[in-house]
């Protein structure tokens, strides 16, 4: 999963990172006035917490090794499906035109 780090000693408690995180990854410790990176597994590296941080002290490091869904053939779901043809017809040949 992505890693999110910041420098607590330099944080001013502006709450911008919490406000910017549209996925609820970042929660806010009201008492300490500091962010809590509560759900990093849901971070999608939009970087809006970095962009919004008034002190530029947040760093999101994307995890590029995350598993990715099937792109061409859903081999993990089922193999008992007819194979697509190898020589497709022109998908946009519209005789009417």
């Amino acid at each position: 999963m992505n890693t999110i780090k910041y420098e607590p000693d330099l944080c001013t408690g502006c709450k911008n990172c919490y406000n910017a995180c549209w996925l609820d990854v970042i929660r806010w410790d009201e008492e300490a006035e500091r962010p809590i990176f509560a759900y990093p597994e849901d971070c999608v590296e939009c970087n809006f917490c970095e962009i919004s941080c008034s002190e530029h002290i947040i760093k999101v490091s994307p995890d590029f090794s995350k598993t990715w869904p099937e792109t061409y053939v859903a081999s993990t779901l089922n193999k008992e499906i007819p194979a697509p043809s190898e020589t497709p017809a022109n998908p946009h040949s519209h005789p009417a035109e």
Partner: protein
Amino acid sequence: MTSLSEMGQTFETDILIVGHGSAGLCAALSAKDANPKLDVMTVDKSVVGFGGKANKGGGHCSFIPEGGEEAYVEYQTRNLGDYISEEHLLRDYASNTRATIERVEGYGVQFYGKEKPFNAHPMIPWSMMTVDLDFMQVLGRQCRRKKVRHLEKVSITDLLTDGDTIVGAMGFSMLTGEVIIIKSKAVIMANGGQNWRIMRMWSSGRGDGIAAAYRAGAKMRNAEFGSFINMISADHHMVVYGAEDHLYNAKGESLTEFARPHMKDNPNLGALGGVDLGGNHALFMFWENQKGNGPIYQNKLENGFATSPIGRNLGPEIGTADPEWFRPVAHDFWHRLHEKKQTAFKNDNVMQEILPGFVGECGPLYVDRSMASNLKGLFAAGDVCACGNGATGAVPTPPGRNRGTGIMWSWFMGLRAGESAADYAGNTEFGQINEDQAEQLRADTFAPLERVGGLPVESVLNELKDVMSAIEFSGWKHEARMTKALDIVLGLKAKLNDVVAPDPHYLMSANELRSGVICAEMFYRAALERKESRGWMIREDYPERDDVNFRKNVVLQDKDGEMSVTLEDLPIETYKYHPDNAPAPVAAE
């Protein structure tokens, strides 16, 4: 019976707007403009200014210059909408882009490139400016000035109804898990389309509004066209702009040149698969793989999009935009994305592996020209209804896939929905919330939180991603494969009964998963019904367009817990553009 106040926190407002992204904020401002006496409240999972999709992209804003309106309507209908565009709404839009810009500018949003907009289309009058990616914060400040109220960090899960009339909405606080019940005269659904969480940042649409409206009895249409597929790097899984024009198979043969003659003889095939974002490149990649010619690569030296004037000014990944186009937030956003992508490449090879990245963009909630749904008091705006409004026909949302239309359509729909809802709410009394209905909906939504032991959200979500992402199912469609995909989706639907959520954050995810499964069922049921190829929906078993039987909409609706599928006639006798009055095709250059 549990009273509403015992069940959770209750609110009352004249107009509730679910989703405070670009469309929702415009709807709120528009409703206040139309009737300042009405109380208007927005509710979202995010904080105002950061919700939705519009700040995670190019910030492009296309408009139609004066005199070009009808040329746009004809081009869109014939070339993209493939003759099922709802021409009247499309014409409304074409006639309103400049007025919409003036209205949004009046709310304080700054436009870049306004002095000399790009002439951004080779076929039709089509100009482009940009806004910076903090424009929703500007709209948010304007909302506060107009006394619009906001509820943040709240997931809305269901609409409350009295027969076919909307009387409010309910959900829960993501922070505390407390039930939230909002009584309202009108609801504007503006919380995005469905992207099935595949393309990470680009998949901000979680489809909660589609699912809530569907469960309440709202009509859906054009769900089968939600199959937008972009080009992504196999190394970092982010979008590689311009790759479409420089694709090669493993033998070194140019895929792009092979694809060109198949693209409807349309010479509009420049960067990004054409300004209109052609959807067929992913199919050519798929076919090459099936022939054993994969993987597919881009030649990175040939792809000069990022450093081109258009690339620098519209998606500034590298270098600096021209002064009149320089946007501070967009510059920061795109540069950070680019810098992080560079750390992911496994080698320095000129040929970089490219994959099809399924974005989806399914937005099937039906609305008419006034942005009203079939349910009294339910209106919609933005991606949630961008396919369902029918205007742009056989395409995914953002409507039409013309570059720069997403934001413009969100404003146009938002402004119109706000006015319509204000008119309705100004002449309507509050309805009565049925406590039994609210309690049943609460129990359904909260079941994953109260369940002991079961499936984590992620395990079911990963299977859902696979069944939507695989091109053999969702891109290159076929009866047998889609039937299989639908079976898998229905299996996932059954698994929802075993999903567990340890806290309110995961309860939000569980609800998003439920929304994703419903939308996947819509997508495959509608695509199975459309036995032809039209627009972005391409079938192996029905490769031709069938205007006799399918110049119609596929309509989905909940009927006693089952998803009904019907074909709906279009008022084509009132339309101007038809297949039999098409001009001769323009020869490719």
